[in-house]
């Protein structure tokens, strides 16, 4: 497992948190969190993960159902899903940053 945080602005108030798992250098699982800094620390406003054979988004509103992004049948599907998630997470972090 490896993890890293990618700040999206110079004051580090918005960031993406990546947690990834590899097997023989191939991506097999991941979590990507969009986080904003609050008075109580980092708050995850959106989270992407690969549980239950689907890559899905857990939206900020906990009342909403997770939104499926991709079905994961093979390892190649995980890599393709990561590309989609990275794009969505980037867009979300950029919008939050640029609104600020």
């Amino acid at each position, binding site marked *: 497992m490896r993890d890293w945080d990618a700040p999206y602005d110079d004051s580090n108030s918005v960031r993406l948190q990546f947690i990834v798992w590899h097997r023989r250098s191939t991506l097999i699982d991941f979590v990507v969190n969009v986080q904003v800094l609050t008075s109580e620390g980092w708050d995850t406003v959106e989270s992407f993960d690969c549980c239950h054979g689907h890559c899905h988004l857990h939206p900020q509103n906990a009342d909403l159902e997770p939104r499926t992004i991709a079905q994961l049948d093979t390892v190649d599907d995980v890599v393709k899903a*990561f590309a989609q998630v990275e794009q969505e997470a980037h867009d979300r972090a950029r919008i939050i940053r640029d609104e600020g």
Partner: protein
Amino acid sequence: MVNPLLDAFRREVNVNLACGALVDFDLPVTSDHGGHPVVVALEEERVSALLGRIRAVGGFANLFVRGSKQVRMVSVIGDSCAIATPDDVMTGDDVPGPTATVGMFIDYVERNPNGVAISAAVGHPSCARDSRVVEFA
């Protein structure tokens, strides 16, 4: 200030760490909170902007810098973690000035293998060291 090139480079680093050429690359720097902050910069940016960025993540960072021909990675770590005392405390004759670029600063780090102390800029004992070229997919 939003820089689309910096956004693009940040995404490039993230993808390479997850499923690209940096999959097996160990991020050497850990923050006080146990995470691995990854800070990105472009060589043409002001070094003051970079130092502010490093300060904002707590003073320790895995720093990736995009130049016109290469990407370099630099470790920004605590002085106490450094194997050797930093070579320079940013007081030499050829030290990058306040208007220097990030590229000039990384060149300076390369000329000081035991690191360059940047404590005053980032708020606590810290040094930049171990500049190396990394290959992207």
